[in-house]
């Protein structure tokens, strides 16, 4: 088994940027300079993505037409399985994304491949593939090995590997999988509606975000007032939005908004689940206020305040008299 196969991810006709991060990971993983990196595009019209994935480090682009226009696990699994069996790569890279949640594990089972998800480091050590991921709420690192598995499917965490700079002129080939029937029909995308709330978290430069630590709904108002006083936009972690205490449009994280323009992020009572970190860990200045010194958020914050969030909120409010 040799070579690394990257499976590109696309949605609604657009390449998901994480695909290029996978190419970088593949490039770094090569055991010899001539080990090949191939990018497979599984889509109804795969050819349209060829230019975009022709980045430095890609030796070959494989277009794999599948019947389903948008995400269809049956079609993706059947096509990927046939391609892997034909090409026999040592490693198959997919993103640790919502789409991959829906099919990568099933692919690994069907092919009897090695499998690991949410991997943030991957390397060969003494000829053995080692994948590193977090465990116990990211409080430990776990190194996984794959004995007896000549092919290993690895789902890589996004925003860990930098996309390659520069272009390439890869060979282009086509792989026709046999058509799989679908058991998922009538697909339709629905944009999240902001409802009454017209805030745009993606353009906010200063966000004060609250999490489970605020305890109860009655306390939201206190932090809203604080956010206003300090000039921040009020955001939240998932549990606050799920409970309906703040609208979904204020949720920061993987399934919420990304704090794209944010320069200062103050997280109060947020423990730092990996899904929340996905929406804000890139922010240049992060201040975490949490009473629990073991909270994961302290591991990515620039500044930490270990204190009761209500006491800090009141004291901070006094620093900003109207």
């Amino acid at each position: 088994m040799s070579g690394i196969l990257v499976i590109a991810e696309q949605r609604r006709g657009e390449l998901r940027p994480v695909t290029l991060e996978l190419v970088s990971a593949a490039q770094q993983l090569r055991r010899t300079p001539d080990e090949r990196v191939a990018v497979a595009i599984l889509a109804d019209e795969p050819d349209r993505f060829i230019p975009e994935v022709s980045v430095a480090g890609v030796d070959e682009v494989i277009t794999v037409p599948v019947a389903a226009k948008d995400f269809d696990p049956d079609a993706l699994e059947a096509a990927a399985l046939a391609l892997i069996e034909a090409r026999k790569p040592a490693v198959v890279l997919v993103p640790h994304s919502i789409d991959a949640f829906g099919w990568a594990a099933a692919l690994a089972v069907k092919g009897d491949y090695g499998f690991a998800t949410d991997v943030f480091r991957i390397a060969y050590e003494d000829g053995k593939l080692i994948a590193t991921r977090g465990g116990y709420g990211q409080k430990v690192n776990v190194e996984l090995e794959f004995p007896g598995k000549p092919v290993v499917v690895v789902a890589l965490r996004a925003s860990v590997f930098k996309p390659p700079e520069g272009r390439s002129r890869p060979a282009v080939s086509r792989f026709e999988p046999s058509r799989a029937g679908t058991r998922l029909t009538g697909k339709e995308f629905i944009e999240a509606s902001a409802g009454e709330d017209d805030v745009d978290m993606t353009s906010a430069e200063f966000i004060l975000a609250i999490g489970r630590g605020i305890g109860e709904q009655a306390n939201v108002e206190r932090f809203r007032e604080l956010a206003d006083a300090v000039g921040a936009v009020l955001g939240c972690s998932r549990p606050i939005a799920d409970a309906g205490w703040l609208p979904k449009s204020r949720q920061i994280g993987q399934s919420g908004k990304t704090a794209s323009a944010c320069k200062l992020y103050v997280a109060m009572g947020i423990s730092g689940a990996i899904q929340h970190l996905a929406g804000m860990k890139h922010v240049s200045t992060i201040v975490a206020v949490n009473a629990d010194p073991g909270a994961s958020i302290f591991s990515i914050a620039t500044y930490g305040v270990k204190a009761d969030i209500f006491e800090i909120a009141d004291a901070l409010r006094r620093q900003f008299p109207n």
Partner: protein
Amino acid sequence: MKILVAVKQVAALDEDFEIRADGKDVDPDFLVRDLNEWDDFSLEEAMKIKEASATPVEVVAVCVGPEDADEALRKCLAKGADRAIRVWDETVVGSDAIAIARLIAAVARREQPQLLFAGAQSADHAFAATGMAVAAFLDWPHAAVITQLTYTPGEEGATLRRELEGGVLHEMQIETPAVLTIQLGINTPRYASLRSIKQAAAKPIEVLTPQELGVPESAVGEAGSASRVRRMYVPEKGRAQMIEGSIEEQAARLAQLIRERTGGAA
């Protein structure tokens, strides 16, 4: 009609913990166990279908784990599950999500549910793999990260919404029987009453071994897994610079940071 709900007894770490002597896991003395948060939502979704149905619906909770996992199953019984099944023997030790899924699939073959729910991920190791792996072993239709589900018992399909990155939803119809993984927020899980907790304590939990399910020893434990833990270790501490002092001093420093970073506009 039956719904099988696969649950996990997850483990959180004590503030201070030690890695086991073999370096492959945390010493179990430092683990605090609980029902996986996602599974609370799966069970609730099954209970909602049961309670809205005109025809009888049986909700069966299944867990792969040692005896202390009974606690998670009792929680499910207290919230209304009709039956509970635990799969275990010593050969299961060392199983990853794939080997666990093989056992859950074997239970599904025996129980023949119309729907099988699993959490979209677990709070401890967050593999986000078990549910879809179960579907592959069964060759059933499958979808992950569901935040909305419409299903009427007796019908041959369900309508669901997957929750994608950025909050976009993806709606579709799926044939049943199907495996669905449930995302947080799909419903509001109920609390068990003291009375139902007491009643659940007296209910039986059926315990099955892999062998009784027809799963050979070579297909469970490390031998039946798609990965094996080589080493577990505590990563170097992150870079947060702690702001010390009294509450007033901490708040003053925070205020200073805010003024600096926002150009003093606030």
